[in-house]
């Protein structure tokens, strides 16, 4: 086996991982973000990922909408037609969730 850049995921967690102890040393109120997928116990501990500072689930939800918007625009979609493309609110009321909807 050839050498990786880091000896082990255990050491990565101990040296670089975001743990509750490290969080408690943070100087002020902070937000914890992570784009996912998370490696719990490696770069982030579960009690941080699921803790009060975490906005990770919101970030992931918003991320879906942002990606959809980017894909819509890249595919030649026009912002002013975006509302109409939702189907004029006739078929659905929530945000679009399939490519056809755009």
């Amino acid at each position, binding site marked *: 086996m*050839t*050498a*990786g*850049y*880091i*000896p*082990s995921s*255990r*050491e990565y967690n*101990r040296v670089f991982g975001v743990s509750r102890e490290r969080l408690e040393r943070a100087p002020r109120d902070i937000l914890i973000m992570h784009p996912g997928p998370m490696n719990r116990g490696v770069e982030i501990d579960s009690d941080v990922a699921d803790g009060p500072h975490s906005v990770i689930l919101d970030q992931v939800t918003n991320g879906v909408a942002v990606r959809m918007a980017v894909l819509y625009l890249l595919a030649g979609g026009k912002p002013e037609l975006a509302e109409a493309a939702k189907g004029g609110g006739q078929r659905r009321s929530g945000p679009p969730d399939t490519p056809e909807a755009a």
Partner: protein
Amino acid sequence: MKTILLTGGRVLDPSQRLDEIGDVLVSGGVIEAVGGRIEPPDHCEIVDCSDFIVSPGFIDVHCHLREPGREDVETIASGARAAAAGGFTAVCAMPNTDPVTDNQAAVGFIIRQASRAAAARVHPIGAISVGQRGEMLAEFGEMVGAGAVAMSDDGRPVVSAQLMRTALEYARTFGVPVIDHCEEPTLAHGGAMNEGIVSARLGLKGIPAEAEEIMVIRDILLARRTGGHVHLAHMSTRGSVELIRWGKERGINVTAEVCPHHISLTEERVGAYDTNAKMTPPLRTASDVEALREAVSDGTIDLIATDHAPHHYDEKEREFADAPNGIIGLETALAVCVTYLVESGALDFPTLVERMSCAPARLFNLPGGTLRRGGEADITVFDPAHRWTVDPAKMLSKGRNTPYAGMTLSGRAMCTVVGGRIVHRYENHAAALTSAGTTVR
């Protein structure tokens, strides 16, 4: 802890450009006062240091204490006592033990054994690769957290340039040097001594200087690429000196050490197949010795380290080619350096103290290396003029494998203070020998 007053010595501390006759007061484990005449406080132990040099304690960044694995050959306790007898207040233990010091538990074991020995300090060096197999990076962070001061696969070269590159990059994170045993294995394979006219005469397979120099320049180039600190162990050739000089002129983060035997003996010392003159890298030529002396004088080589490598006498009593590599060095290093560097005119005492104490402390980020007020009281008192004949039977090391046996040398540690405690007195040496022989843990 007793208060100690070292009186009337030549107080020599290059870290603060101090060189004067005076006293040093040690109290509570730290240096309380330095220089001038100091009135002895009540209940203090006075050590007369007239005609002696009082310097920051010597630090050996390269020794093999064999524990765990070969406690019959040396233990951390016997090695730490031998170090103190040689004037060393601290040594760094190489990780090529059995099992290899490649994890935090092994590092913690060395620290615990050293604390029980209560002689010279012992700083563990962690392995670069798991099991020193040269494949997977070991856990530097965990080992540094447990007290390791450097990383090395010493005993073996780091064959893979990619592993060396990764090690240098990763070690930067923790601010520790990576020490390499520079030996290109395909060139050195099967070699028993320096390749040259003497090896030809003796019919022994040689190790060419290039086996070292190829790895020296590789490591220097990788240090340039990564910005990591590479420390080159036991340099032995003129070519290596030129390459290190080249690297330093370019501001590359390279440091290097030389062993007392490489600045005092040549390949001729192998003589009639004397296995006590067998080590890696091997003793080289007079021209190499001359270049190494110049290099340690001008600072191209930063420090002196022993590569103390004890072996059982019966392991050394065999065919030269099959005998193990290495010699002991803790108890002869000072005398060899005084005799072959200072008395030969290559070095003055302040530079010797710089190379044996200040530079190791500074480059490896260790306590000691200074007599500054308030600092750890790690102090070596030595008599630079003391003439003595090396007798392996009178060593505190369990090893007897020294090429200096029977030689008369100058310079001897008279008193070694570690953390404000006297751990060696020359006048108690005979008693220390007896107790070392009977102490079994």
